[in-house]
């Protein structure tokens, strides 16, 4: 396929989706961590010692969810340009079941804010477990709904039957396998971002725990990924026979390996060293980039792309691209300015606090 408007939108979609996935992984991974930890403590399996990972996650999860939602607007826009019919049809077929993600996510959002509050800090183990598990379930439900929506959008031959059945749940074994891949895959990203956060705040004590979580989750997501690949039919697997397919799979696989090596380094040194974390960070970026590409290659196999190319070309001809580019640059600079203000002042504040101690 020669380079076209379709490629242009695919790149924009992929780039903005990858950004969304980084924040989404923090939310999904963080909510999972908090829920598991609180349930372990409730059953007596965990200890009561202060946990900087949980404390930091509790503090930053509302921000991360807000970031995930904001970053998610752009891919939500571009997916409507790229695959309008498939995306709209899946939305419509799932109907109330799909629309439920909004109230559920609002509930999850407020639960995350409540977890930050003083009353939640003082809450007993059972209440804490209820709150954190509730937040996790809300976030996980949203993730599961997206998985269902995505897979249903690829199943064009099944649309009319699904509609006739009146069902609001897309029952397919691939939904669970794919969701497991995403859920476990979110944890290494969460662990990595958390490691950088803890490193900055000089709380290095949790290195081993983070490494265990990241390695365990990376392994499970790898298994789920292979299992998901096994569910694909012959035609879809053909997506991986081309140059782009092989390259994307290789990048994703190499990224996964770099993460594993990076976290093993953390485990061996029992410290959050820049070298190991840097390797894991490159690995996370490579995996997200590779997996995002693979995801679209699979979709392109399922959707009649040639019929859409004319629509993409027409959309690309609409005015406003340069206004977008201009404000993208200007607003990126303004965001950098905000971050600089905060980072500079925050560093000075930490310095002063250190001297006062």
């Amino acid at each position, binding site marked *: 396929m020669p380079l076209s408007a379709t490629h242009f939108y695919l790149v924009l979609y992929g780039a903005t989706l990858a950004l969304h996935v980084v924040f989404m992984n923090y939310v999904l991974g963080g909510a999972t961590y908090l829920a598991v930890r609180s349930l372990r403590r409730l059953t007596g399996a965990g200890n009561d010692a202060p946990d900087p990972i949980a404390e930091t996650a509790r503090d930053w999860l509302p*921000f991360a969810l*807000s*970031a995930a*939602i*904001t*970053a*998610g*607007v*752009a891919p*939500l*826009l*571009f997916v*409507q*340009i790229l695959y*309008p*019919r498939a995306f*709209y*049809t899946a*939305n*419509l*077929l799932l*109907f109330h079941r*799909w*629309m439920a*993600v*909004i109230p559920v*996510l*609002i509930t999850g*959002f*407020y639960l995350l*804010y409540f977890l930050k509050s003083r009353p939640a800090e003082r809450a007993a183990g059972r209440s804490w477990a209820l709150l954190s598990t509730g937040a996790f379930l809300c976030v996980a439900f949203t993730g599961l709904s997206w998985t269902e929506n995505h897979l249903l959008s690829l199943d064009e031959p099944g*649309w*009319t039957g699904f*509609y*006739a059945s*009146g069902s609001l749940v897309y029952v397919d074994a691939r939904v669970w396998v794919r969701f497991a891949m995403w859920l476990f895959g979110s944890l290494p990203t969460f662990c990595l971002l958390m490691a950088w956060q803890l490193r900055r705040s000089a709380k290095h004590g949790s290195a081993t725990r983070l490494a265990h979580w990241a390695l365990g989750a990376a392994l499970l997501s790898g298994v789920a990924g292979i299992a998901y690949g096994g569910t694909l039919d012959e035609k879809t697997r053909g997506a991986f026979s081309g140059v782009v397919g092989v390259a994307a799979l290789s990048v994703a696989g190499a990224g996964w390996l770099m993460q594993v090596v990076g976290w093993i380094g953390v485990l061996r040194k029992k410290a959050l060293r820049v070298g190991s974390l840097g390797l894991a960070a490159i690995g996370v970026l490579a995996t997200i980039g590779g997996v995002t590409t693979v995801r679209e290659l699979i979709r392109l196999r399922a959707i009649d792309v040639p019929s859409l190319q004319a*629509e993409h070309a*027409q*959309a690309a001809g*609409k*005015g*406003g*691209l340069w*206004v*977008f580019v201009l*404000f*993208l640059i*200007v*607003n*990126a600079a*303004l*965001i950098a*300015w*905000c*971050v600089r*203000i*905060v980072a500079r*002042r*925050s560093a000075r*504040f930490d310095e002063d606090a250190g001297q006062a101690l």
Partner: protein
Amino acid sequence: MDQPYYPINDFGPLMKGLVIGGLGIVHVFVAQFAIGAGLLMCYFQWLAQTGRCLHARPFLTGYFRFFVLVSFVIGALTGVGMWFTSIQISPGTIGLMVGEFHWVWATEWTFFCVEFVAGYAFYRYADRLTEGERLTLLCLYSTAAWMSLFWINGILSWQLTPGKWTATRWVWDGFFNPTFWPSLLYRTVVAMTLAGLTACVVINTLTELPRAARGELMGRAAQFLVFMVFMPLFGVWYLWVMPEDSRSWVLGGSAAMTLFTMLSVGSSLLIGLYAIVGLVGKRLYINGATATLLCALAFAATAGGEFIREGSRKPYSIRETLYSNSITPAAVASLRQQGSTLRDPYALRGAEAYPHEQLRLGARVFRFQCAVCHTIDGMNGLMQLAGSWTTEQKRMNLANLQNTKPFMPPFAGSVEELEALVQMIEWEKRDRPPTWTSSSTPDALARVRVWMEEAGTAPAHARRIEGS
């Protein structure tokens, strides 16, 4: 013309317009509050740092917490919800809007990102920042928030008044359309009003401050309500540039639309009088209950305003481009030839309940052409609107639909489909009996054909223009 078919859901007795309208009102209310709140916080930060108001700082802290919990959660998620709901109601409309304006939406997204970063930076680090840095972050936040209004306002106002875009199809002709400026200015004043009113609610929660201090803060916040004096000006400007037929619905032509106009104008007037005479003129102190009541009135005004905006577009969802039922004006003639449901791949749910094929066809026609605005027997139900008509009246009125009710689109199906719809309404009116004898005859179909040809395919307002 290649008419896309999507699966259409049944919302039960609830009219689809109410679903999107309900969510839209909440979203618009919260989003406009967020925009005004940004401006208000800049003002209070300036008051604090210049020493003009000693209690501005504690107010700002309390207000920002309230703001984050409402705007960053409900505002953001109902915004996404608006997109999902638009898809549920009319994928054709949202698809066309995205196709035309995706770069505008993408530009708006870059401002969302600034809003988010500046807002959260202030939320987390305000206590560590200098006064100048605090003001910088708040100014960045509020500018980005107002700019997001600027961009979305262009798209929403285009739906009613596409202006020169109809001929040129150039995105900026559509964006800077006739209602763009009055709508933007009106919404800006609404945003400032909401900020002032919610500030009065929050001030009442600051019980650690003495009453005199709260009174002073209230006086400052009330200054934002003074801008309401411009509302009549912008409102009249908006009405002036509206299409004539749309204006006529709002100003008496449609009882429901006129009631919404009165609700919006009346509520705004009450708030404006209370704010300007009481709060600003006589420096009255209002308690939390009164402040909340004023916010509720503002919500009612917003609801009325949004219904006017949605309803005055009828029979279109995008003026002169797409009818409410997602059929383009250009497609009506061909759908009359080919039929509107022949290529619809989605089966009729509960088809076994219909005694014969003609009724099933009628139900499919209802689903494709009517269900976006009507129900069978619920809100805006066909039984209430057309159930009492005689069979012949139904045939004639549906064939001549755009002239029977000028805010309705022309019937966009074959003669047989129209007759099937008539039979389906009759059958529903008789409580869905298990057997049904159709009253269709070749003569009746011939009469329907003549009426449809006489009515033509143009909407009512186009015929009026031709006539004049």
